[in-house]
């Protein structure tokens, strides 16, 4: 044992360029603990420094490393090291800090733990093992504009389609429309039988705090569950779209600004729960209005397009939001983009005027509230509600939705909010751009569905659902 310690200290002090661990080496502390455990001779291994052993383990990979725990007790301790397993977790395609966030904050399912487990208490090795056994889920993220679907084990949605799910006043009941919707998506994914759970995003509708709205929301959730269970899906997890976008940004509380197809919703979420009683704001400007406005502006310059699709492509590739609108007007902002089958199109002022209608709706002749006003109003309500001791939960604003990816949008919103709100409220405000581009909610669903505790804490089985709906206990 003494030889081992001497060799370890020797190697650490000899290598000047070695890692930052040479100052406070947790390995050495653990070995001091091990001194009190009876360990018989470990032969050749005795002479190899721990950090080299760990280097070999990293090359070996998680499965082989886990096997080596059965060799002897000292190897068992070394292989169980949290840093090693964090390394293995980080080498999966989802970034390591997202995995860490998910496993510490979201383990328990709803309701979320308010004080998440501290990382050192968790064994990352066990988390790794549990995650390996998670079956993976099918993700369906349908909004009012586009629906993205795919598998949780893949790195991105495998398909996108325009939503054909009508939420308005139509004759047939919700559940049969949903069943139709889901079965078409599943046939596009070529799913014949369902062996995996399905995780579905619930679009935000009926956002008031009235009894009627609450009832409608519950009905929608139940309709989703019953449509899927009727299709013999083994387990279902349904989470609100805004909440999923929040998780994708690695937060459990904050204000989600979801710029959707028809409207923009401003959703305050505390500990994963949407605070309807604080008030969800909605502005009637969405992607559709933005594209429409761009089309009009181009028409004024005699550039006409039949299809909104082309205009949308131009929007996605040339538009941005100016930090200072007035100053931008006097700059030369021309840029061109080559649209297939139409050739090169050049835009100048239209590039930043389009996104500007979110901040100054009157440019488009609209009476709607400006984005910064709506967010500030929401923050005001959050502050008044005094829901928790920490009055900073609503100061993180997360953007979501395709149009939220317009360059410069987050910076401009932050600037506007700071200008609009009194200093007492505006200090600490951060506006975070969509972490995964247009697919925030999809990636949030992927994060949840790959959790080690997904099937246990997040999914509802058919049996459970029938039991609950009979007792009307669903929240």
């Amino acid at each position, binding site marked *: 044992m003494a030889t081992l310690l001497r060799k370890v200290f020797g*190697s650490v002090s*000899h290598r000047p360029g070695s890692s930052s661990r040479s100052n406070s080496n947790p390995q050495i502390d653990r070995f001091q603990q091990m001194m009190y455990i009876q360990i018989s001779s470990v032969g*050749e291994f005795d002479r190899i420094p721990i950090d080299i052993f760990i280097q070999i383990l990293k090359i*070996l990979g998680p499965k082989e490393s886990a*096997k080596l*725990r059965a060799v*002897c007790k000292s190897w068992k301790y070394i292989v169980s090291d949290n840093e090693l397993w964090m390394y293995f977790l980080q080498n999966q395609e989802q970034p390591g800090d997202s995995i860490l966030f998910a496993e510490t904050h979201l383990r328990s399912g709803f309701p979320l733990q308010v004080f998440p487990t501290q990382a050192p208490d968790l064994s990352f*090795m066990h988390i790794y*093992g549990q995650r390996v056994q998670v079956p993976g889920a099918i993700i369906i993220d349908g909004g009012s504009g586009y629906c993205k679907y795919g598998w949780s084990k893949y790195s991105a949605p495998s398909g996108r389609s325009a939503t054909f799910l009508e939420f308005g006043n139509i004759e047939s009941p919700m559940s049969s429309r949903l069943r139709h919707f889901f079965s078409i998506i599943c046939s596009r994914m070529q799913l014949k039988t369902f062996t995996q759970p399905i995780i579905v995003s619930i679009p935000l509708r009926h956002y008031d705090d009235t009894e009627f709205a609450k009832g409608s929301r519950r009905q929608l959730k139940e309709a989703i569950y019953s449509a899927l269970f009727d299709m013999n899906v083994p387990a279902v997890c349904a989470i609100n779209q805004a909440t999923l976008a929040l998780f994708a940004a690695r937060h459990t509380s904050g204000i989600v600004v979801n710029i959707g197809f028809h409207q923009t919703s401003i959703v305050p979420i505390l500990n994963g729960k949407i605070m309807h009683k604080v008030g969800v704001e909605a502005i009637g400007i969405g992607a559709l209005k933005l594209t429409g406005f761009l089309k009009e502006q181009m028409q004024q310059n005699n550039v006409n397009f039949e299809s909104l699709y082309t205009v949308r492509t131009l929007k996605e590739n040339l538009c941005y939001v100016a930090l200072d609108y007035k100053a931008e007007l006097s700059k030369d902002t021309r840029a061109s983009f080559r649209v297939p089958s139409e050739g090169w199109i050049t835009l100048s002022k239209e590039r930043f005027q389009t996104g500007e209608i979110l901040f100054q709706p009157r440019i488009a002749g609209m009476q709607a509230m400006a984005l910064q006003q709506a967010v500030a109003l929401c923050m005001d309500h959050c502050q008044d509600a005094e829901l928790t001791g920490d009055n900073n939960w609503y100061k993180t604003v997360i953007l979501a939705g395709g149009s939220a990816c317009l360059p410069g949008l987050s910076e401009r919103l932050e600037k506007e909010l700071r200008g609009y709100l009194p200093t007492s409220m505006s200090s600490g405000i951060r506006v975070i751009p969509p972490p995964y581009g247009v697919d925030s909610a999809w990636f949030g669903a992927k994060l949840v569905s790959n959790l080690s505790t997904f099937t246990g804490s997040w999914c509802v089985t058919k049996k459970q659902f029938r039991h609950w709906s009979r007792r009307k206990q669903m929240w």
Partner: protein
Amino acid sequence: MSSSEERKLILKSSDNEEFVVKESSAVQCLTIKNLVEDRCVSDPIPLANVDSKILALVIEFMEKHAETTLSNSEKKEFDVEFVKKPFDDLLELILAANYLDFRELMDVLCNTCAKQMENWSVEEVREKFNIQNDYTVEEEKAARAENPWAFE
């Protein structure tokens, strides 16, 4: 600085054998490089932790990798042959490379070790590393059962 190419160093192994090497090859070992840069070079440089057999092998690797006329694939071919040694020698080389802080050699050796270990059963690992199994039968079963997915 034309003389730096021809400058030679003398390395002395733990069993007092002396080896002459070019300074330009030897500085691949950061331990030696630091000594040279700090002008702490005594002649010969004593390497108390490396015996002559291993030091000769390290020098062979070092000189091959310092040759600018060789292509990367030729160096890789050399590496493949170089690591065909008994496992005990590889472990000794790892210790030497660690002591000398010779990154390239370390990487090659660790990769080789890992590749060999991949195919071993738990019992073979114990044998090759000369490790006493200090588990009782139940303890070993419990350790295996903690990670069933690793044994599939």
